């Protein structure tokens, strides 16, 4: 990272910590906010948070590694999460899986080269009555089929 970028990021993080509170119980909210802004939480960002909260950087990393919605490696701007738990699985979720993989040319867990889209699996989204379900960042789509799933991806691009 360039020094300029670092300075800019430091400022952003300082501002976030100031608004959300520089105590331990704000840590998750702070990390969620950083994730939202940069699509992941870089080593540098982790160190900054640790410095401002006066905790060890490993503490920050241990939180990121625990929660499946937080990432320490770059992710796409849009994270697509396809539910693979039983009620969705019974509604032909596999077909959607195949269709989106082919469309983007990547596997689940991977990000497109242009850093736009990351594909992820997720567990039950609480939409089982209108399965199969998928999240695009925080937006939820229900009763999707391979065609509509691909259409959603196209609109992101």
């Amino acid at each position, binding site marked *: 990272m360039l020094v300029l970028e670092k300075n800019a990021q430091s400022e952003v993080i300082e501002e976030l910590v100031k608004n959300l509170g520089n*105590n*331990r*119980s*704000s*840590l*998750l*909210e702070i*990390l*969620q906010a950083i994730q939202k802004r940069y699509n992941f939480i870089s080593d540098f960002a982790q160190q900054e948070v640790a410095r401002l909260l006066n905790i060890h950087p490993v503490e920050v990393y*241990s*939180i990121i590694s*625990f*929660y*499946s*919605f*937080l990432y320490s490696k770059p992710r796409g701007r849009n994270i697509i999460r396809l539910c*693979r*738990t*039983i*009620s969705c*699985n*019974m*509604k*032909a*979720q*596999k077909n959607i899986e195949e269709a989106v993989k082919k469309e983007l040319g990547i596997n689940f867990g991977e990000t497109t080269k242009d850093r736009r889209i990351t594909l992820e699996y*997720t*567990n*039950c*989204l*609480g*939409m*089982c*009555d*209108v*399965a199969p379900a998928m*999240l695009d960042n*925080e*937006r*939820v*789509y*229900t*009763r*999707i*089929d391979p065609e*509509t799933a691909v*259409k*959603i991806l196209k609109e992101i691009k």
Partner: protein
Amino acid sequence: METLLNSQKKRGGPVLFSRYKGGEGIHKAFEMGRENILFEVKTSGLKGRGGAGFPTATKWMLTAASVSDKKFIICNADEGEPGTFKDRVLLLEYPELVFEGMVIAGYTIGANQGIVYLRGEYEYMRKSLEDYLEMMRKENLLGKAIIGKTDFNFDIKIHLGSGAYVCGEETALIESLEGSRGEPRNRPPYPVNTGYKGHPTIVNNVETLASIPHIITKGGEWFRKYGTEKSTGSKLFSVSGDCEKPGVYELPWGTSIKELLEVVGAKDTKAVQIGGASGTCVPKSQFHRILAFEDAATGGSVIIFNENRDMLKVLKNFMEFFVEESCGQCTPCRIGNVKLLEGIEMIERGNYTFTYINNLKDLARTMQFSAKCGLGQSSLNPFLSILENFKDEIFNPCRNGGSNGKAS
């Protein structure tokens, strides 16, 4: 494809979905006073709707009796059990019930702060919840000196989770709120004494809290008219899988599985998973059983499988879920679930001995009492119940490459 932000379904039901006017419960609660609130909740026989079924009045009384300068009310909206989505409907369509339940709880035990732990997957409803809270503040149903009660301040904030099923376990939830990994704590001490930041804390499920305003306005006796002796009131069931009308249903406790299947239009049903992945699988021969704490207990998840489903695939899906969601803190759960999943894959390939499968069943029974929290203590339920109830289908030499059905 549709987004579900404004589901238009008109719902009706005997208890939770019965008529309620916003604000009524708080007014009535203030008139009654703390003692009488506790009395009505006790009379109602309300038990926790989050799965464990702990008597709500007892939890509240213990927290009320704890001495501390600060106390907290936490609404557990982490709804992560596979096949459960009733809390989604309550939060989106009946926020007045949930939030007023929290205010009444706060008033009763002397807390000033409520926290909704909303699962990360439900971020899309955050805006509508924040808007509703803001409206309550304008009407002075939240904030300082609520509707003129000068000695009572109470506000609610929303905290977003980040994709971890185990954070629904109450002590893991508190760890998470405190900014740590969501790893369950040893209990005791219980949150009623040592909860959020060490203060006495009530953790209640969304549906439990949503029952409170009804109980306060209509009375504990009215509530217990519904249901059975041991399971009073009604329950929201999240019904999914093979049926014509999946969705959220309010039915009195004591409804039989057979009756529920008729209501939701399920045909050719082979099995029903009661209580989500951590619940048990009930075969056709037991559909006369009733949904109640004393028989087929459930936090509300009902997943229906028809004759064409491959129950081994269903079981595999559940075990994959647990392997992924185990927090990894204790060995029986971290390793045990992996071993059970491996066993299922061996059966899938036809590469197993009954001696080994029986060893795995022993392992499962060991997990039940050696795992640290409810996740590892119940992840074996589908393993034992599916292998037992569907052994003819699963241990069938023809299943490999044969014509045995499919899960999807």
